[in-house]
Structure formats: structure tokens, C-alpha cells
């Protein structure tokens, strides 16, 4: 007789930061079946975008889908709108947008690393990374005027320009951050007790990663070459020294390494951006009403973010579809859990960096 026990994990759980529920079917300590329920925080943002707000107001609305990806949501939306109303954004605005996206990536990855440390039982490291993360938050506040809700991009460009003073401040802060990240890197690499929690745990093969459409750091840790930055030429990523970061192990350790290396490469990219921001307008005039269909993709910290828009020559859009990275990541996550020990679940889940307010929107 097969004896299994069902253990619910969430929607409220001490090691869970987000309202999601997993139903684990376990045999002794081993997980044999998983069900995920993600619909706890559905807020009807897509409905609001097509019934309450005009298309020019939506960048502020979708920014509030998720606090961590505020910039990527509004930016992807804005990119999609710009395609249907034919606005050409200046090079300068593109550079400033890239700058914010890369800063966003750094702080989001640091948040994820800190939670992975915490859920593996390393509270002090969690505190340390969160404290270092403040450096990036301060930079973002200096650029956009707010810590979390940047409202920085708008249709046609960006809202605020960058001054020499801020450029100096950013470079100084990044130079301060770099050794700290290297310290943390060293810790994740060489700490023996952390390696017990990370190495070989929660692994996914490259084959499975592409069957279940994993994306972002989750896929790159398994060696699957997927990154929107390399798959579109909307932004001049090659010019500023973008390299795809890949690991082969696919486990928590691999995902942490991908994130840490991406932070370091983002720091380099930001320095390059700051060196050669071109001259130009930051904002172009926008005329007309959107008419037609368009799609836009962008690499958010957690993976590909996707917007589909349809306009019918009215101020209100006809359809706004948001596809967030965690939403497409769920099938791969469910797959990874199978065969793992129940005790490792918190650390594995944190290493996915799930964002439920994005997923259910």
C-alpha cells in the first residue's frame, strides 16, 4: 500500500513571503507530488487598465503590479505603446532606461540572495545583504525621486534627467558596493554550512528547463541560453558590454552564482552606461491615439516580462495582457520540487525568487 501524507505549504507560512499555496504529497521526507495554487492576490489590474485608466496613465498603474519590478513593468508597457503610436525615443532616454533596469536587477537579485540565505537558516547574512542593498535603493531614490515607486519612464522617454552630481554619486556608491558583493560572493562560494543547503539541491536539467519553459536566472543556472537582452535589439546592450551569464549545475548554488555574477556584470554595465550617455532630449512629444496590436518583451530580474496591447483609436485601450516571469516559471518550479526533501522546500522556493503579486496581478 502506498502511504503518502499531504502537507499544505502556505498560503500563510512562516518561511513564505508571498501568498501562494503549495500542496505537497510526501512519502516519508520525499516529495512525490506538488500542486500549486496561485490565485490569492488577483487584483484585476488588466481589467482596470481597460476600464478605468487612459493609456497615458497606465505606466503609473502597472508600476504598482509589483514593487520590485516597478520599472520593468512600466517600461515594457511603454515600449509596447510606443510601437503602436510611432514615437521614436531618443538614444539618451534609452540609456537612462537601461540604467534604471540594471539598477533594478541588482537590488532585486540582492533581495533574493538575502532570502535564500535566510531560508537556509543564515539570518546574519540576510541582514548584511539587506543593509548593503540600501546603497542601490539610495541611488534609485536620487535618480527618480522615490525609493520604490519610480514613475521614471513615460511614453516618449523618461521623466527626469540625470545630473553630473548624481553620476558622481552613483559611481562612488557602486565602487563602495563592488567589494561588498565580492565578500558576499566569497561567502556563498566557500561557506561550508551554506554549501550543505545549496549544492545539488533543487536541481533541474537543461532538458527539463526548456520543456517546462523556465526563464531568467532559473533557466540560465541550468545552462539554457535565454535572455531577452540578447534576443532583441531595442536597447544597445552589446555596446555597453552585455554578456550572457550561464551556469551548468541547475541547483540552488548555481542560481545564486548566476545572480551574483549578474550583479557584478550589471555594475560594470552601469559604469559603461554612465561613461557614454549621449546628448539629446529625454522626452518626445506624444500625439494620437493607439490603434493596432503590439507586443513587447523585456528581461526583468526574474526573467522575461511580456506585454500585449490592443488599441482601437480610443484613449482607453482595448486589451492589456501582462505576462510576468513567475507566472511562466511555476511549471518548472513544480517540476523541481518533485523528488526533493520536504525540509529543503523553504530554501528552494526562495531561490526561485517568486513574486506572487506579479503572478496573480
Amino acid at each position, binding site marked *: 500500500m502506498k502511504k503518502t501524507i499531504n502537507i499544505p505549504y502556505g498560503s500563510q507560512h512562516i518561511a513564505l513571503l508571498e501568498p501562494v499555496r503549495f500542496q505537497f504529497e510526501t512519502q516519508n521526507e520525499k516529495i512525490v507530488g506538488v500542486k500549486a495554487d*496561485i*490565485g490569492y492576490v*488577483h487584483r*484585476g489590474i*488588466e*481589467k482596470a487598465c*481597460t476600464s478605468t485608466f487612459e493609456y497615458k496613465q497606465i505606466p503609473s498603474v502597472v508600476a504598482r503590479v509589483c514593487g520590485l519590478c516597478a520599472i520593468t513593468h512600466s517600461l515594457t508597457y511603454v515600449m509596447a505603446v510606443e510601437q503602436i503610436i510611432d514615437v521614436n525615443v531618443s538614444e539618451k532616454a534609452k540609456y537612462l532606461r537601461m540604467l534604471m533596469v540594471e539598477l533594478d536587477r541588482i537590488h532585486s537579485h540582492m533581495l533574493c540572495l538575502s532570502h535564500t540565505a535566510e531560508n537556509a537558516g543564515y539570518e546574519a547574512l540576510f541582514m548584511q545583504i539587506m543593509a548593503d542593498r540600501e546603497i542601490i535603493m539610495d541611488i534609485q531614490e536620487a535618480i527618480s525621486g522615490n525609493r520604490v515607486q519610480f514613475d521614471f519612464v513615460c511614453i516618449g522617454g523618461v521623466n527626469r534627467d540625470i545630473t553630473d552630481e548624481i553620476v558622481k554619486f552613483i559611481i562612488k556608491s557602486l565602487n563602495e558596493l563592488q567589494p561588498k558583493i565580492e565578500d558576499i560572493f566569497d561567502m556563498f562560494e566557500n561557506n561550508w554550512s551554506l554549501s550543505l543547503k545549496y549544492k545539488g539541491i533543487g536541481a533541474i536539467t537543461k532538458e527539463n528547463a*526548456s*520543456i*517546462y*519553459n523556465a*526563464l531568467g536566472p532559473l533557466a540560465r543556472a541550468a545552462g*539554457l*541560453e*535565454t535572455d531577452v537582452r*540578447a*534576443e*532583441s*535589439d531595442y536597447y544597445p546592450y552589446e555596446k555597453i558590454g552585455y554578456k550572457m551569464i550561464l551556469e551548468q549545475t541547475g541547483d540552488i548554488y548555481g542560481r545564486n552564482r548566476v545572480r551574483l555574477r549578474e550583479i557584478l556584470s550589471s555594475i560594470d554595465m552601469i559604469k559603461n552606461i554612465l561613461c557614454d550617455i549621449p546628448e539629446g532630449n529625454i522626452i518626445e512629444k506624444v500625439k494620437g491615439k493607439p490603434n493596432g*496590436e*503590439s*507586443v513587447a*518583451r523585456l528581461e526583468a530580474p526574474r526573467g*522575461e516580462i*511580456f506585454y*500585449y496591447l*490592443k488599441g482601437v483609436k480610443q484613449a482607453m485601450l*482595448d*486589451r492589456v*495582457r501582462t*505576462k510576468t516571469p513567475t*507566472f*511562466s516559471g*511555476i*511549471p*518548472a518550479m513544480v517540476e523541481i520540487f518533485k523528488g526533493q526533501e520536504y525540509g529543503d522546500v523553504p530554501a528552494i522556493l526562495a531561490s526561485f525568487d517568486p513574486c506572487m503579486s506579479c503572478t*496573480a496581478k
Partner: protein
Amino acid sequence: MKKIETNSENLKDDISAFYDYKIWHYITVNGVDLGDKMEIQYLFKKYGNKEEVVCYFLTMDYEKEIPSIVSIIPSAYLGEGEVVDMFGVKIKEIPKGLLLEEDSCQAPLRKAQ
């Protein structure tokens, strides 16, 4: 976006002839209400390539049922589930209730409502 039309009978054949998990990244399933019928879109992107997004689409009546592509793309159940919830369309073997509860408003993105 490159659009290719299909219909509910040929959908599974078309997608399985087209989709190879090593080459194509499945993005999502999307629904658009056209006012009197539904358009269901299946979006794909090639890995490591700067080509456009490829979109297979079909139009259907509200009451009709279309087949599911889960047998070809196992992770499609989420995207299809969302379309089922948001538009109240029927897709074979995809239950309701991924995002909405039983007692919440049904099919919120349907235009007639």
C-alpha cells in the same frame, strides 16, 4: 509580431508540427475579445535569435469548446487557465478557478458584461 491563422480543428496539429522545445520558447496564451467572438493567441519566440514573436491565432464563438495544447506544451495549463477564467471560454480539460474564486465575478474581461 508575425501572425499565423489556424482553427480549432487544426490547432493541435499545427502547434505540434511547429513547436520544438529546443528551438521555441513558449511565451503564453492570450485571449482578446473581438466584440462578437473570441480570438485566442498562442505566442512563441525563438531562443537566441532576434526574430519577431510568432503568434498562432484562432477565432471562436463564445460557447464553443477548443482543444487544449497541454499535451504538446506541458506548461501551457497556466496560460489557458487564465484565459478560461478571464473570458469564460471553454477549453477541454482545463478547469476554472486558477485566479478567480467561485463567488467572485465570472469572466471579468468579457465585453458584454
